[in-house]
């Protein structure tokens, strides 16, 4: 697995290409990310626009929008997650098969965005599920989604299969299922999943 | 008597047994198809290609599906019976079946010495079957055709929803 970079380049010059298992695996994962057919609000329209002719997400092999979460690799949370919807989003995420990725697209998905002061708006989906990439914007331009997609590819590429930074699905201790919040009398219960969401210490 | 024969026999009989013994009706139907498929392979072993293919087409492709549909439509796969899956008179039924098998088996075993031993495969290609159907067996063919049509119409009428006005 550990082939020296320099050696590899040298071999490549002489026509010998060395591919490690890890590279092949990561290459396969990153080149074939099928998103889930899932849209929430305004950003969903920009997400659809990204798959359309002008921007053509298909160039990256990611136009295969699977309607079933079982077959999807990536969930693009495109839009406001309300407290009424949040349990469903978590449930859908739970139904996805590993490896799975989450892109929080747009201000609302990251933090509640312009609607964060609303009583029915969840302040960021990362309170319940782990998010890989955040795209700011309201809504982000389609190019921004493409850029985020490439950032996700880079992230996948950089993941070693063993050791510290290994992806979650290869980590036996990592949680596979995330508890679904319940809809209480005034708010979601619990208000955040403490295992996923660690409130940063504010220095101010 | 080759190994193939024993394997196929085992498969067929296991399928048949499972079909009558399993609890879940869909499993029964699926085992039934195993039995049918095994039978088709036995037909192939007996050099009856045409019949084997017809067996798969009709039994696996149609009858099994029909059974499955009937199971789903009557929703018998999911409602566990209070009194078990077997009838109250299962003992009588079983003994009748055992008796029949005993008689048949006895007859076969008794007659073994007189059974023919021919082993060369008879030629029976599709052309011959077609010609036979159109010449010697044309009357039965027509009757079967009529019967099938009648059965088709009958099945449709039986299974058709009554119109609301009929009540």
């Amino acid at each position, binding site marked *: 697995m550990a082939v020296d970079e320099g050696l590899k380049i040298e071999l490549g010059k002489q026509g010998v290409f060395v591919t490690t298992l890890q590279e092949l695996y990561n290459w396969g994962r990153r080149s074939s990310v099928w998103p889930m057919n899932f849209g929430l609000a305004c950003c969903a329209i920009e997400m659809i626009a990204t798959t359309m002719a002008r921007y053509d997400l298909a160039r990256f092999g990611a136009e295969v929008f699977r309607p079933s979460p079982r077959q999807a690799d990536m969930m693009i949370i495109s839009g406001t997650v309300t407290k009424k919807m949040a349990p469903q989003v978590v449930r859908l995420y739970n139904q996805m098969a590993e490896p799975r990725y989450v892109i929080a697209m747009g201000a609302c998905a990251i933090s509640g965005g312009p609607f964060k002061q609303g009583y029915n708006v969840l302040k960021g989906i990362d309170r319940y599920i782990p998010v890989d990439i955040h795209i700011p914007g309201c809504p982000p331009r389609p190019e921004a989604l493409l850029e985020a997609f490439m950032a996700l590819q880079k992230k996948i590429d950089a993941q070693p299969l063993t050791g510290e930074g290994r992806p979650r699905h290869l980590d036996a201790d990592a949680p596979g299922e995330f508890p679904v919040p319940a809809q209480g009398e005034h708010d979601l219960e619990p208000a955040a999943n403490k295992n996923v969401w660690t409130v940063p210490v504010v220095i101010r | 008597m080759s190994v193939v024969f024993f394997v196929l026999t085992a498969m067929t009989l296991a399928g048949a047994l499972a079909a009558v013994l399993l609890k879940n009706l869909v499993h029964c139907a699926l085992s039934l198809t195993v*039995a049918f498929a095994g039978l088709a392979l036995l037909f192939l072993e007996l050099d009856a290609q045409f019949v084997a293919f017809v067996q798969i087409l009709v039994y696996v492709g149609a009858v099994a599906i029909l059974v499955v549909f009937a199971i789903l439509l009557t929703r018998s796969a999911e409602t566990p*019976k209070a009194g078990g899956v*077997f009838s109250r008179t299962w003992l009588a039924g079983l003994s009748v079946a055992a008796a029949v098998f005993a008689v048949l088996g006895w007859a076969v075993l008794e007659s*073994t010495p007189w059974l*023919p031993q021919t082993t060369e495969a008879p030629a029976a290609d599709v052309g011959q079957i077609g010609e036979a159907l159109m010449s010697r067996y044309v009357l039965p063919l027509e009757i079967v055709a009529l019967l099938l049509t009648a059965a088709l119409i009958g*099945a449709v009428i039986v299974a058709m929803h009554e119109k609301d006005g009929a009540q």
Partner: protein
Amino acid sequence: MIGGASPLAGYLLVAALMFAIGLAGALTRRNAILVLIGIELMLNAANLNLIAFWRYGPHPEVLTGMMFAIFSIAVAAAEAAVGLGLVIQIHRHAKTVDVDQMNRMKG
């Protein structure tokens, strides 16, 4: 082994066993569909007999056994269709497919 003497005997035994299994199923199961399945098995056992006799019989070129099997398959298909149609119809009326409970004369 008996089969060694005549391959036909082996087939006939298999057919007999299958017939018995089908009969046992038809007689012991409560579900009407299972009864039909048993009957199908019996019919198939008969078909196996027919083909086996044709194969090892004295005049295979006449194709009688095979023809019989073909007709039997066709008729069995029709029988299955009508039989299952009846079961569904009974279920619609009586709300049961349990043969033990199908003892009322009116629907």
